[in-house]
């Protein structure tokens, strides 16, 4: 279908779904007046209207994403995606119970080969209903994974992610529950001392136990944090980078990769995207994982031509911003190879303070 035909399709869908939603609204009102069949019919009509919009959006994607990718010099395969093994090789997430990938785009940007696809990760959770337990897949991440193939190999490995995202998930709940138990315990013993006739001497062992329990909990949480993240966390110079990202890796190897120039490029990328970004650099690959629902949104109220233009501009800019990171990596690597960074390895002369 040509863009002109898609525009006719959009107008027709907009009119049909508008009429259906209006009718559904009237039927809902009737349903509220006590007519159950009207409510049921209203739901059916609303679902049908939604189906029409979804069909239109899928049609536009099918018709336009491939030509868009080709116009930008890329190859697009709607059904394919980066394989589970490839995605896991990024090391950006633990093996999920369920993995889906689609919208594979491959090509070169500024001479750098890349592949990207939309991915969704699922965890299998048990749902109990009475004595019957069933398993459901719950989505815990949806976004776009980019793999840029570097023309040079990078020593070491570094990972970065949105500030504070990983630590919070693991440790905060345990600390909160422990602190809650301690506070309740303290309150109960204190009430006993003040109003229940318990002497201070009898209450002291309880207080000591609660305080000890709290410190043990705190120490265990901190130690786990230390082992899990903190010892590997690399604090870098750029305050902007530190505000947006947490970097992990060997203290020296990570700093060799995350030079001030690269930190700047990553800050710029994050600001441009406006969404959380995870990344990993390992061997010949740079991986970027961008959280977000849909790379190619199709708003039904916007003319198809404008949607296509918006896609082109956004997708090109997104890739260019990401490739800027690769270019900085390449520039640093080249400069290093030619000895231009020798100046940064100067002798330890110290400033007097």
């Amino acid at each position: 279908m040509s863009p002109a035909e898609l525009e006719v399709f959009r107008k027709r869908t907009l009119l049909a779904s508008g009429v259906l939603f209006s009718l559904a609204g009237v039927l809902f009102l009737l349903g509220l007046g006590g007519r159950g069949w009207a409510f049921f019919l209203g739901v059916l009509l609303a679902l049908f209207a939604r189906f029409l919009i979804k069909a239109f959006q899928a049609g536009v994607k099918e018709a336009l994403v491939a030509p868009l990718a080709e116009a930008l010099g890329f190859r697009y395969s709607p059904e394919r995606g980066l394989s589970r093994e490839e995605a896991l090789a990024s090391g950006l997430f633990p093996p999920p119970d369920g993995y889906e990938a689609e919208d594979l785009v491959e090509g070169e940007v500024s001479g750098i080969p890349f592949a990207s696809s939309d991915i969704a990760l699922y965890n299998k959770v048990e749902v109990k209903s009475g004595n019957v337990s069933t398993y459901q897949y719950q989505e815990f991440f949806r976004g776009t994974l980019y793999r840029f193939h570097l023309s040079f190999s990078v020593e070491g490995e570094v990972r970065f992610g949105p500030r504070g995202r990983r630590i919070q998930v693991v440790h905060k709940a345990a600390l909160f529950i422990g602190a809650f138990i301690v506070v309740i315990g303290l309150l109960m013993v204190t009430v006993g001392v003040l109003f229940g006739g318990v002497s201070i001497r009898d209450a002291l062992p309880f207080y000591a136990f609660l305080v000890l329990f709290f410190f043990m909990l705190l120490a265990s949480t901190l130690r786990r944090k230390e082992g899990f993240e903190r010892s590997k966390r690399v604090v870098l110079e750029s305050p902007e980078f530190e505000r947006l990202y947490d970097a992990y890796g060997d203290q020296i190897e990570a700093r060799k990769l995350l030079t001030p120039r690269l930190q700047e490029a990553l800050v710029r990328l994050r600001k441009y995207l406006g969404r959380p970004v995870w990344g990993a650099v390992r061997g010949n690959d740079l991986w970027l994982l961008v959280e977000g629902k849909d790379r190619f949104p199709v708003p039904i109220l916007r003319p198809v031509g404008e949607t296509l233009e918006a896609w082109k501009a956004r997708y090109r800019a997104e890739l260019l911003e990401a490739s800027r990171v690769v270019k900085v990596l390449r520039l640093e690597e080249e400069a290093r190879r030619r000895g231009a960074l020798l100046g940064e390895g100067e002798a330890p002369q110290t400033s007097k303070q």
Partner: protein
Amino acid sequence: MLLMNTLILVFLVFLGALLALFVWAYNTVVARKNQVENAFGTVEAQLKRRRDLIPNLVEAVKQYMAHERDLLERLTRLREWAERTQGEEHLKAEGELSQALRQVWARLEAYPELKASGNFLQLQAALTEVEDSIAAARRFYNQAVTEYNNVLEQIPFAPIARAMGLARKPVFTVPEEERAAPDLGELFRR
């Protein structure tokens, strides 16, 4: 009796909080101090790696760079000086060693035949890698010192640090002559 019990409880809670604060502050100061020592050890280890490569470098280039004998001899002397000294003098020796190495790199351009020597190219790659690691280790050290110095001036750490006799530490700085950014365009045209 109720008032007495309340007062005792308030006092105990206050004492417990004070003790917890002290333990936390003391541990933080010790952790920062150890982190600086660890980071400095990392810098030292990288500098040692560089010193170990210098005899091989001198050996690999001396037959090509016969006219630079003085410079190569100076490099060897500075390396020995850095090996046997400690503290401020050691740092000074390392600084001069870095400058001498840079002079060697600069003069290498005049000896294109060196580029054909596999041994030299290997050494050059190794030295470049070490310099890169030194730069990264220095950034790690500077970060650790910044955190340490901050702790020394912040409450509640400052009194504990003073009692432990800790003083501010200096950070590594880039020498004046190296502050200008390298001309990468010129470099890539070579």
